[in-house]
């Protein structure tokens, strides 16, 4: 018990505590009808973005590779999850079990895509991963935009580019190309969202503080030095990248099953950048920061609703201000003096 509050672990412990306390408080508020419809509807999306953000932070912050396709992995996970849940709905009536299966499927499919992309790219140096993941996100969006799948009593039907589905009685269209998935059964819930956040934290923290994690950071900090002591660079980077992708896939499945309508264009380049903004503003390599900044930035446009038509302008201005403030050296010095005591608690294992 003492161990989790020592200097080395305190940062991790407070992160877990923060998530658990937030869950308890929000659940109590929700059960006693004090949370309101707006915030209730935001609980699951916030969890999804946090999980995708934690994954991206592993990739960008810990592994040091820029990934501009996180939304693409979310998309893969979301639609894989929707298909699986739709196919299983006549067999398994329990939403929770289907949700778990969908999340696992989403994570696996996204991990597979991540692995395939990683093979050629992670052997290269430089910004290639950014370019390839950017393209990947766009390609996935175009593919799903042209993908039709439905199911009837005779089995599954698929078609590409043109909608050639010819479903019999009782047939259901699961994904209808550009119109995406309609009438999705909303089986996601906040508890599952928080469980997913905690699982992703456990995965990322344990990786960070493990031998593999140190190898990943060594590869980030000095490629040549790391290679000279026998670290397989592309393998360690691949590990981080695949885990990052699978977390995004799991987040996507949870996200997709939270809405009755999901369109492929939701997961475009903008969404990837949005997640990157959450990660960068929260601090690279800082998981707690990612959680806090994601929560604030997802809530911000909703909290600004009172400003009506000026809402999105103010949102942009606030974003710019946060970036300026968080990068201001004078302010940083000021903070570091104030928080001098806390300094050693920062998540730094080097």
């Amino acid at each position, binding site marked *: 018990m003492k161990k989790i509050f020592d200097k080395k672990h305190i940062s991790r412990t407070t992160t877990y505590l923060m998530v658990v306390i937030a869950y308890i408080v929000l659940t109590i508020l929700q059960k006693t009808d004090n949370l309101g*419809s707006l915030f209730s509807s935001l609980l699951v999306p916030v969890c999804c973005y946090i999980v995708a953000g934690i994954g991206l932070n592993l990739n960008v912050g810990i592994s040091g590779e820029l990934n501009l396709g996180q939304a693409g992995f979310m998309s893969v996970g979301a639609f894989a999850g929707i298909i699986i849940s739709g196919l299983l709905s006549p067999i398994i009536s329990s939403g929770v079990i289907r949700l778990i299966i969908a999340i696992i499927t989403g994570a696996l499919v996204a991990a597979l895509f991540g692995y395939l992309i990683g093979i050629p790219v992670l052997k290269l140096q430089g910004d290639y991963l950014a370019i390839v993941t950017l393209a990947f996100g766009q390609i996935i969006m175009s593919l799903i935009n042209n993908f039709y799948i439905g199911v009837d009593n005779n089995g599954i039907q698929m078609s590409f580019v043109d909608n050639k589905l010819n479903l019999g009685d009782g047939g259901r269209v699961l994904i209808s190309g*550009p*119109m995406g998935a309609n*009438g999705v059964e909303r089986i996601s819930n906040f508890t599952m969202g928080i469980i997913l956040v905690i699982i992703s934290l456990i995965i990322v923290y344990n990786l960070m503080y493990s031998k593999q994690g140190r190898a990943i950071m060594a590869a980030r900090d000095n490629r040549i030095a790391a290679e000279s002591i026998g670290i397989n660079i592309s393998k360690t980077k691949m590990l981080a990248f695949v885990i990052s992708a699978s977390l995004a896939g799991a987040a996507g499945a949870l996200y997709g099953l939270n809405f009755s309508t999901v369109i492929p264009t939701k997961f475009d380049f903008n969404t990837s950048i949005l997640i990157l903004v959450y990660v960068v503003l929260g601090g690279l390599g800082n998981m707690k920061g990612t959680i806090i900044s994601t929560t604030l930035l997802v809530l911000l446009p909703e909290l*600004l609703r*009172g*400003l009506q038509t000026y809402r999105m302008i103010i949102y942009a201005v606030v974003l710019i201000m946060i970036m300026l403030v968080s990068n201001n050296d004078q302010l940083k010095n000021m903070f570091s003096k104030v928080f001098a005591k806390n300094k050693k608690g920062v998540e730094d294992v080097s």
Partner: protein
Amino acid sequence: MTMKKLLKGGLAAVMALSMYACSANSGGSSSSDGGAIKLGMSGPLSGGAAIYGQAVQRGAEIAIEEVNEAGKVKFELNAQDDEADPTKSPNAYGVLKDWGMQVSLGCVTSGAGSAVSADYQNDKIFAMTPSGSSMDVILNSATNEYYGTVFQMCFTDPNQGVASADYLSAHSDLGSKVAVIWKNDDNYSTGVHDKFVEEANKVGLEIVSDSTFNDSNDSDFSVQIKAAQDSGADILFLPIYYEPAAAILVAADQVGYKPTVFGVDGLDGILGVEGFDTSLAEGVYLLTPFSADATDEKTVNFVKKYQEKYGEIPNQFAADAYDVVYAFAKACEEGGVTADMSASDIAEIMVKQFTSMTFDGITGTGMTWAETGEVSKDPKAMVIKDGAYVGVQD
């Protein structure tokens, strides 16, 4: 720990700011009398589709002003932005529900609307969308059941496709060979197109060219125009919104291709596209329920007020919203709805009223509604002449 305090402080400051903003301007409500029935609406008030959301909001506001002046029932409106995004409309819905919405104008756009239709059903709140024309707004495609509390003031997309094909086959002087250019990642366009093709085959219209575009390639239409021109089509059917339609007209003009252009209600607004040479739109036909140049008293009054207030000619979206509010007023009056009733009680009365009453508005007369939520009214054909929409006499 201090870091946490700071963050808490920051969060509190953001909250306080927004609360202040809320109280300073409570979400676009036009009046806050005690006895007013709370109407909610969500639509794209910012972003690319904002023109539709704003039109609906403005149309509704004018109608509410008039209804409140008449004094029989009182309404107050809260318009929320959903950016036409199906993952944002649940948030807008949440805001409206927290505000205490009793009746709703639903969502302006179809995609956003279909994402919250189940909420309206579960929470038993009556919604009538002025412009969410997709079947998905009123029909749950997973269970094939109608939501029952979501109604439409506009035609469903399939109905528009059928009406267009019927109109073209009845007016063979416009042409006989049809080329269609449509947007295949758009609910609205796909819905109209599919039914149009189906009906065209039935009534013997010949479709000689059928080409698509999507969100990522909606600026250059030379390929689609070439295909239409090569196939010898003399009618160009555009079941799309007006912005790409303007680009298509420009592309057709560049190669000297002059078919009869025919569109549905999405083309309404083409004369207002910035930088668009409106002379290119001369002779464009569109099938839409509303014409701003109609001479009946109601339309003249609405157009005049809208112009005075906002300096532009109202489009069909504004007119639909105007009608929705009047239909609400009529139903509330006849059903004895008062502001102190709960949303679910009101919903029950509204469904009963709407399925039994006949309503005359500016987008059609003798409108009736089925239990599914679909409206039945006659479409009107319009043609653009000398830079204005003119009703076709036939």
